[in-house]
């Protein structure tokens, strides 16, 4: 299009309705330009640029055209810029200033409409300010596929509105705030909060899930007050609402702001000093193996680097590991990128529904399906496809994904590794052969995997080898958000290392356990082991932003600075390093990890040298981690667990529920996190389609709110992992008894 062509040479043509991701529409006509040999002014956003075309963007005729359009737009515009949140960052203001007439000629009364009324807990609509560009309607309806905003009425009476009485619920609705060129769609939490000239707006990356969407953070008076999407090459700048509205987590009441030592509040300096001295004493007496460090993968790369050097150089070679909520290890050689996803011919959702676990990737998939017919396949223990993402899916028994994938590969491929992985498994039936055929199609394959089922790792390696020179890439949708930072600095990220550390702690072989942002009791797949480790280990120290489960067992707590409070580098799910800057200040005594560790190291007697001279990007290629080659042998996948009667527990990851505690995002937080088939709920007597249930297995039980979801197969209960107060990692088996319980007056 002419607009894009002009943009590549740095010429700005005004646009309202045009957006590259949404395609041309030609509704607003602000982009009028004069094109030689064309009789009239043309809209630059709907005219394809061709060879030899001569376009005048600043000619008198073009400017007159724009002035006319702007005059029309202002006829019924309220011009209440002083109270409009977009004032100062509004494209109507900008274009009128640049191209508009100085004086209005329209003297009649303006049409009045609804002003600043909520269409969702996050979004306000001001119909008077709308320029009817339809970006919002097209984004929600066509791009996201959830038609929640509509145009109503005709002619000058056209307005933007939600479906009457039904608020917007899409997790992508917040993007319309960024898309709206004027002050018609506003962020409720940001309403009247600040102006572009009294804020600090810094480039950053969303910290709530491993997608790491590029965004800008707005800080005012030391507090984060907004997060906006920020387009970068290759990314449109979409955010999901879970990330967009969790920006305030640093100011949450449960945030750690003071240091504690043996239950008493102390200064951070004092806590660091005592910790250093105690560590020195322990290492002198028991050696470095008596200390271990576990990271939770939420701190920055720089912090992880300091942590690793602290373990290596100060403690003299103590073990370090990563606590992640899943038991499987991704063969890093297979790590894919979003660019590769955009080139893939087939995508396989493996146990993960990206809409829940990596929301903005769902949008990328949908765009690829719509734009170039990407083929979507899904293999899981529940239905993973949805109305907005069609494809073909295979639903297998809980715990049976690895066996199904291995059998499907072996059913089609003769490759020895495929054979080996499927050794001892029942041969693929007709439907699995179909899956195998789909996966063995030539062209590029991208797998989205949420890291459940340890045996999927060998099954994926076998698939990749069987596919030979056709690229096979895996994008891990599991958190923690920055776990690849550990891989960047050489902290082992495998499940086994952290399990060993916790086992040793539980057996009393570890004297001091240092948890850095790690919450093993809540996140580690074997929650019992983690709880035993915390109980038996004589001294457990925690550095982080939110207190972990079992905080009463901690010997000391060190509050660290959070995202947006300091500059730092994060590694997203493609292994890409992204450096965000800070726009707020850390509250209370919270300090950057590096400063705290340095203070501990000094008290220990071994200060860390040249900590700040390390460059996280050194040795990376295209800002990405250098991946190891794919090597090692494939082990046979174990057969799926035998079917049992009764309900079976399945799990997954859901950003909507596991994001950081936030008062803003709490507005839409689901308080019934578990899901079951509506018919099962009815059988349990929960006729309203939701309610509290008790899940039990052996002598363990817990209560959780459950709601109906037809995408969960019958006989299964879906409970997300890593939720506070929902200890599914301590339930033992996957066979559970489910019982409806009386609603207890809660809170």
């Amino acid at each position: 299009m002419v607009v894009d062509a002009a943009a590549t040479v740095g010429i700005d043509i005004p646009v309202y309705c045009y957006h590259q991701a949404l395609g041309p529409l030609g509704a607003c006509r602000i982009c009028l330009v004069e094109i030689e040999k064309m009789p009239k002014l043309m809209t630059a956003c709907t005219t394809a640029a061709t060879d030899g075309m001569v376009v005048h963007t600043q000619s008198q005729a073009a400017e007159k055209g724009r002035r006319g359009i702007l005059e029309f737009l202002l006829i019924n515009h309220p011009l209440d810029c002083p109270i409009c949140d977009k004032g100062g960052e509004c494209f109507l203001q900008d274009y009128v200033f640049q191209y508009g007439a100085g004086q209005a000629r329209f003297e009649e009364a303006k049409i009045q409409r609804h002003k600043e009324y909520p269409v969702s807990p996050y979004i306000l609509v001001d119909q008077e300010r709308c320029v009817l560009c339809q970006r919002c309607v097209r984004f929600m309806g066509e791009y996201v596929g959830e038609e929640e905003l509509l145009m109503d009425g005709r002619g000058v009476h056209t307005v933007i509105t939600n479906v009457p009485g039904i608020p917007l619920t899409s997790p992508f609705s917040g993007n319309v705030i960024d898309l709206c060129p004027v002050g018609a769609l506003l962020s409720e939490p940001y309403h009247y909060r600040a102006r572009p000239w009294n804020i600090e707006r810094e480039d950053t990356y969303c910290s709530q899930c491993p997608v790491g969407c590029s965004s800008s953070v707005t800080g005012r008076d030391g507090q984060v007050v907004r997060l906006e999407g920020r387009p970068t090459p290759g990314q449109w700048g979409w955010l999901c609402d879970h990330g967009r509205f969790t920006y305030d987590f640093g100011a949450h009441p449960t945030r750690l702001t003071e240091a504690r030592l043996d239950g008493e509040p102390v200064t951070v300096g004092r806590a660091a000093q005592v910790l250093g001295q105690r560590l020195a004493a322990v290492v002198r007496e028991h050696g470095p193996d008596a200390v271990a460090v576990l990271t939770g993968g939420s701190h920055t790369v720089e912090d992880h680097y300091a942590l690793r050097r602290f373990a290596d150089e100060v403690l003299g070679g103590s073990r370090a590991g990563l606590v992640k909520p899943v038991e499987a290890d991704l063969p890093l050689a297979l790590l894919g990128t979003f660019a590769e996803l955009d080139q893939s011919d087939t995508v396989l959702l493996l146990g993960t529904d990206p809409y829940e676990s990596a929301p903005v990737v769902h949008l990328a998939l949908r765009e690829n399906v719509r734009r170039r017919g990407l083929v979507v396949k899904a293999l899981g223990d529940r239905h993973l496809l949805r109305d907005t993402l069609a494809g073909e899916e295979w639903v297998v028994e809980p715990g049976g994904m690895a066996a199904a994938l291995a059998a499907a590969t072996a059913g089609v491929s003769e490759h020895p590794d495929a054979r080996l992985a499927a050794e001892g498994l029942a041969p693929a039936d007709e439907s699995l052969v179909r899956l195998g055929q789909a996966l063995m199609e030539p062209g590029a394959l991208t797998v989205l995997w949420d890291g459940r089922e340890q045996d999927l790792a060998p099954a994926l390696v076998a698939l990749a080898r069987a596919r030979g020179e056709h690229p096979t890439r895996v994008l891990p949708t599991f958190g923690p958000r920055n776990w690849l930072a550990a891989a960047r600095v050489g902290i082992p990220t495998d499940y086994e290392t952290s399990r060993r550390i916790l086992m040793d702690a539980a057996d009393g072989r570890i004297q001091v356990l240092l948890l850095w942002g790690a919450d093993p009791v809540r996140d580690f797949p074997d929650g019992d082991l983690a709880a035993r480790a915390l109980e038996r280990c004589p001294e457990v120290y925690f550095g982080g932003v939110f207190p972990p489960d079992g905080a009463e067992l901690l010997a000391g707590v060190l509050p660290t600075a959070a995202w947006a409070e300091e500059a730092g580098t994060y590694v997203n799910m493609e292994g890409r390093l992204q450096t965000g800057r800070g726009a707020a200040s850390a509250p209370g005594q919270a300090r950057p990890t590096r400063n705290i560790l340095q203070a501990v190291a000094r008290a220990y007697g071994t200060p860390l040298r040249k900590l700040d001279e390390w460059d996280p990007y050194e040795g990376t290629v295209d800002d990405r981690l250098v991946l190891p080659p794919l090597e090692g042998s494939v082990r046979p996948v174990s057969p799926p667990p035998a079917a049992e009667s009764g309900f079976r527990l399945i799990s997954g990851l859901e950003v909507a529920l596991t994001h950081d505690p936030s008062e803003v995002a709490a507005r839409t937080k689901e308080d019934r996190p578990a899901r079951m088939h509506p018919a099962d709920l009815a059988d349990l007597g929960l006729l309203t389609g939701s309610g509290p249930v008790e899940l039990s297995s052996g002598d363990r039980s817990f209560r959780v709110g459950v709601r109906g979801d037809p995408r969960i197969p019958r006989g299964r209960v879906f409970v997300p992992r890593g939720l506070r107060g929902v200890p599914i990692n301590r339930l033992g088996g996957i066979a559970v008894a489910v019982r409806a319980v009386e609603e207890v007056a809660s809170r």
Partner: protein
Amino acid sequence: MLEALKGIASGMKTTLSMLKEPRDTYPYPEKRRELAPRYRGKHMLAVDEDGHELCVGCGLCEAVCPAHAIRVVAAGAEGDRTVSWTERYAVDYEVDLIRCIFCGMCEEACPTNAVRLTPFNELAAYDRRDMIAKKDELLAPPVRR
């Protein structure tokens, strides 16, 4: 000797002759100078007949102020209790009178004619913190006696 006395006398002549002339200074604070009505002194925030503040907290005065002397924090009215004549108002409005250069740009930028510079120029305090005029203070503009 005589020369010296002559010198003193001629010097004193000017001094003594000036005693009869009208005064250019004022015996402040007993008597104060009459200032032009548009003299730019301390700020005030205006209120309309119904008692609603004119300021809507748009922050334009803050943006335009060359000395960065103004700070505005806006908020929405809660329920029906509007503070200004519309939904939005300034919860916090501060002018740092030490920084302010009394250029009047804020007055000029204000879309609602809320902030105005009054002829009040008696600006002195023992503590520099007292020189930051808060909103309450600006809403009750002092008058020169």
